[in-house]
């Protein structure tokens, strides 16, 4: 294996890791679409897709082939550069944040000391993508969806960031590797125990940030028929969907990393060494399942209810809990 050592040097290591992360993100999106349809089917006493391949497992492949062969049409008066740039602006941030998430001990693409800041900064670009899609399409429903999306995503950035601060205070570091290392030694050391209200707030904000039910007002397929993505077709639409589903996976990964111990095993003796990514995967998959479970159970909120929940409940709650955390850190 000596000859592979050059891969561990800087440009190659980063390029290789970036390729792996991109591959992971795209496949994650495809698998999540499949999982979404299966969970939806099972919850509604159906089977979901079960014709393509064994138990329908090749359905995402069929979907992707279909999307690639479809024509990509755009409205005649669309601002083409913005229209075509929007899916990319939605997808790139989602893929980029995976670069700072530790998958296993030592297995992180870029261990930067401001990883949480990076996460917060880069995910807020997603709102830009939504606005670009709505503005560039030059369509009424698109614009409505984009305005709703902008209002919702910018509002929920606030509780999202505030809910991270408790973890940052307890760890004393903005690096996700430090955050995970600080949660070692059993599940009672995970921050979800000390920061339970923050975890709930983060979870709800993550739902809103990824525009999933019950906060799917920007899409609102029953009222504004798809919202900002209404004018997209073929693979541009596919890329928006991929960005949404990968964003859901990303939020699950981040919430696992911050609150559920990342790759830390739930008990000491279950430590798998380099294979601790299995724990990360299991926990992330569980969170993803709860996202889907909520999606197929709850109705959509109204816009004023959404804003009330964000500004009147979650922001004060996080602020209060920050003060409590600070006081507890002073006392103990």
């Amino acid at each position, binding site marked *: 294996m000596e000859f592979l050592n050059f891969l561990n040097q800087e440009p190659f290591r980063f390029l290789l890791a970036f390729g792996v992360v991109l591959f992971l993100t795209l496949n994650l999106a495809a698998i999540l679409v499949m999982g979404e349809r299966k*969970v939806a*089917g*099972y*919850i*509604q*006493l*159906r*089977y979901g897709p079960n014709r393509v391949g064994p138990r329908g497992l090749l359905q995402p492949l069929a979907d992707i082939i279909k999307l690639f062969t479809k024509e990509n049409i755009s409205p005649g008066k669309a601002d083409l550069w913005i229209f075509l740039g929007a899916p990319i602006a939605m997808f790139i941030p989602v893929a980029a944040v995976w670069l700072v998430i530790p998958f296993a001990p030592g297995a992180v693409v870029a261990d930067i000391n401001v990883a949480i800041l990076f996460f917060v900064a880069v995910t807020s670009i997603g709102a830009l993508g939504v606005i670009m899609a709505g503005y560039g399409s030059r369509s009424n429903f698109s614009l409505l969806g984009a305005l709703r999306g902008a209002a919702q995503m910018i509002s929920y950035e606030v509780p999202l960031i505030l809910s991270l601060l408790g973890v940052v205070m307890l760890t004393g570091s903005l690096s996700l590797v430090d955050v995970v290392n600080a949660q070692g030694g059993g599940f009672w050391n995970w921050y979800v125990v000390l920061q339970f209200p923050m975890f709930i707030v983060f979870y709800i904000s993550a739902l809103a940030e990824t525009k999933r039910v019950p906060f799917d007002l920007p899409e609102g397929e029953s009222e504004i028929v798809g919202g900002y993505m209404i004018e997209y077709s073929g693979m541009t639409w596919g890329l928006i969907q991929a960005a949404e589903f990968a964003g859901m996976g990303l939020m699950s990964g981040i919430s696992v990393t911050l609150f559920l111990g990342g790759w830390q095993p739930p008990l000491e003796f279950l430590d798998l060494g380099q294979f601790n990514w299995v724990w990360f995967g299991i926990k992330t998959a569980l969170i993803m399942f709860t996202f889907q*479970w*909520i999606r*197929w*159970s*709850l109705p959509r909120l109204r816009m004023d209810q959404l804003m009330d929940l964000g500004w009147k409940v979650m922001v004060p709650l996080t602020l209060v809990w920050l003060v409590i955390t600070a006081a507890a850190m002073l006392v103990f």
Partner: protein
Amino acid sequence: MPPQLGQGIMKGMSITLKNLFKNKITRQYPEYKRNLPDRTRGMLTVDMDRCIACLQCMRICPDHCISIEQTKRDADGSGKPKPYAVGFVIDDSRCMYCSLCVEVCPVNCIYHTEEFEAQAYNRLELARQFGERPVDPTIDPRPEVKKKPKKAAAKGKAEKGDAKADGDAPKKSPKKAPAKAAKSSEGDAA
């Protein structure tokens, strides 16, 4: 905070979680086919031995989906030539399963089966032939016959009406009985 906060959400989510593990109620159609009810109106079929070529089904069909090619033939050996359907086509791409032809048939030779999977890659493949000779399903078996005499009567130009009918006849397969009927009726009207 009211004590019931979040209870509705918990209730709903527990129901969906229970459904996740329940047996699915989907019937996997091509593998599982349910029993069809009595009097199912499936694809039509004809018992050509009983057919007396009275053309009533062809005339009553609202979609013009039945075409019959009629000749006189001594089929039962009685020495007397009777109407006989040498060609009989039912075009399932037009049929709407209204059952009017079944009701009108005096010898009950046209009836519904329980077949309902009418599919083909070409629309013409859906035209099923029953007679000895195939009938072209693209030709409308029942051209609009009633308008012309009215027009002719309204205009009071009997000669022109006749000329029209003669001109139309070769186009619309002169073998067909309705065309003949149309001609004769027009002649009567004139």
